[in-house]
């Protein structure tokens, strides 16, 4: 398993993935510096900045870009017979799938950390003097990451299934756009997997909860959809003709 991971990383780092990872802090800076609302709220000035940044980031950017990452990690396998070469090596398909997934999740985590840096920079550029709300920022960064577990699993599945970039991206768009409405609904929002990055990065949520959402929601919605998509993709990959 360790060897497959090393090999996957070796192939990936030579693809232009780093440019895509770095769109994350850039989007963070853009959102933080342009979407300035007049601060009429009482309390910590970081909150408002954080709130406005996280909305667009978690609602649209994070779910969509993770799909792009998943497509890139499969691109070079689709291109010139990579799958058949890889799977004729002494490896199991299961391990290859898990390795790709694990690597993707590390990349998303790294992206979240870069976004964290962007948040800090936005405050620094704006000259915030209030104390940095470390516990809240930390929660939203890690929460957003955890919320992408099921989304990445589905996108990896779709990216293995389709050769083109456009097809898995279309699937991603179809599920991501309704999130904008879903988060307005108290009835449906909590059950919609694509709304979870927003829910878990929403600093306005209940601070008492781990990651701003109740444990039950985390386990059932995020955990449940993760299992569904991960097992679905895993099973599909076992059968995929190469």
């Amino acid at each position, binding site marked *: 398993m360790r060897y497959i991971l090393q090999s996957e990383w070796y192939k990936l780092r030579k693809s232009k993935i780093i440019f895509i990872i770095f769109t994350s802090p850039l989007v963070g800076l853009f959102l933080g510096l342009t979407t300035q609302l007049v601060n009429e709220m009482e309390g910590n000035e970081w909150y408002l900045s954080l709130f406005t940044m996280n909305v667009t980031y978690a609602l649209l950017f994070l779910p969509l870009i993770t799909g792009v990452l998943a497509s890139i990690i499969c691109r070079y396998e689709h291109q010139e017979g990579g799958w058949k070469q890889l799977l004729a090596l002494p*490896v199991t398909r299961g391990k290859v799938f898990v390795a790709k997934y694990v690597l993707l999740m590390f990349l998303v985590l790294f992206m979240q950390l870069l976004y964290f840096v962007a948040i800090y920079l936005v405050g620094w550029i704006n000259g915030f003097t209030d104390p940095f709300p470390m516990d809240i920022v930390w929660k939203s960064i890690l929460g957003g990451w955890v919320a992408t577990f099921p989304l990445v699993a589905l996108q990896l599945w779709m990216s293995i299934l389709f050769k083109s970039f456009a097809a898995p991206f279309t699937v991603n768009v179809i599920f991501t756009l309704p999130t904008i409405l879903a988060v307005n609904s108290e009835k449906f929002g909590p059950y919609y997997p694509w709304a979870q990055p927003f829910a878990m990065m929403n600093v306005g949520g209940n601070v008492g909860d781990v990651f701003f959402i109740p444990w039950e929601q985390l386990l059932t919605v995020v955990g449940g959809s993760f299992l569904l998509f991960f097992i679905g993709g895993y099973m599909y990959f076992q059968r995929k003709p190469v």
Partner: protein
Amino acid sequence: MEYVIKTEGLTKKFGKETAVDRLDMKIRKGEIYGFLGPNGAGKSTTIRMLLGLMKPDSGMVRVFNKDLKKERIHILKRVGSLVENPSYYPHLTAYENLEALRKILRVSEARIHEVLEIVRLSDVAHKKVKGFSLGMKQRLGIAVSMLHQPELLILDEPTNGLDPSGIIEIRNLIQRLPEEYGMTILISSHLLSEIDQIATTVGVISKGKMIFQDSIHAMRKHSRQTIILKVNDGKRAEHILQGKGIYANYQDSMLLLSKLSDQKVAEIVRMLVQNGLAIYRVEEKQSSLEDIFLQMTREEA
């Protein structure tokens, strides 16, 4: 008898079409096994099943006397392969392509240089593969297949798209392997001429069925000799022979006679001379392996 590869009743269907039909393949250690058949006969499908890339609908595959279904990983550690068109990662250099696979196969780094040397790609080791010619990609594919010093090498149409000198080069390379490294080799082709000089055993597949499997010498015995007679009046000669119950075929001013003993030939010549015909030439023609191969696959079709 111990076989390196042994399949029994191997069958694969795509919808209604049977791509591989109850195939029994037997390859002994140290052989260079030529797997022959026209395009679309089921060669690549068979090879994919040998590597576990595809699952057979029925039948079984044993490699190194182990069941492929149960011990795939163990088996693949000792097998190198090149399936159809060469596979590669276009965004990586030749060296990096090998390095990515080496990380899984756990062989020494020096081995990369060795295999690049063997296929003579050392000079371009640090160039991206997407700029390679087809022949270079094919050679890289062979380098990949030999990276972990496998005991069994499975090469699917390795000379596809190569120029004549490239074909000869690869042929020489493959020929060396069994002696020098004790490898067993399965090499597929749709042209017998490409492998008749190196294969020790051949298997001929047509429409998914194995229609011949034996040593290359046995295949040569299938060849029919033909006696060719050139005479001044072929029509009359044909008539005379037919009157004696000897079947002859007159075409292109030649008289063709098949499978005759030396005595019989002498008798025929005497007969024709006595009838006042002038005999210009008596020749023996051996049909080539290619003819036999074509004849075999045609008969089946």
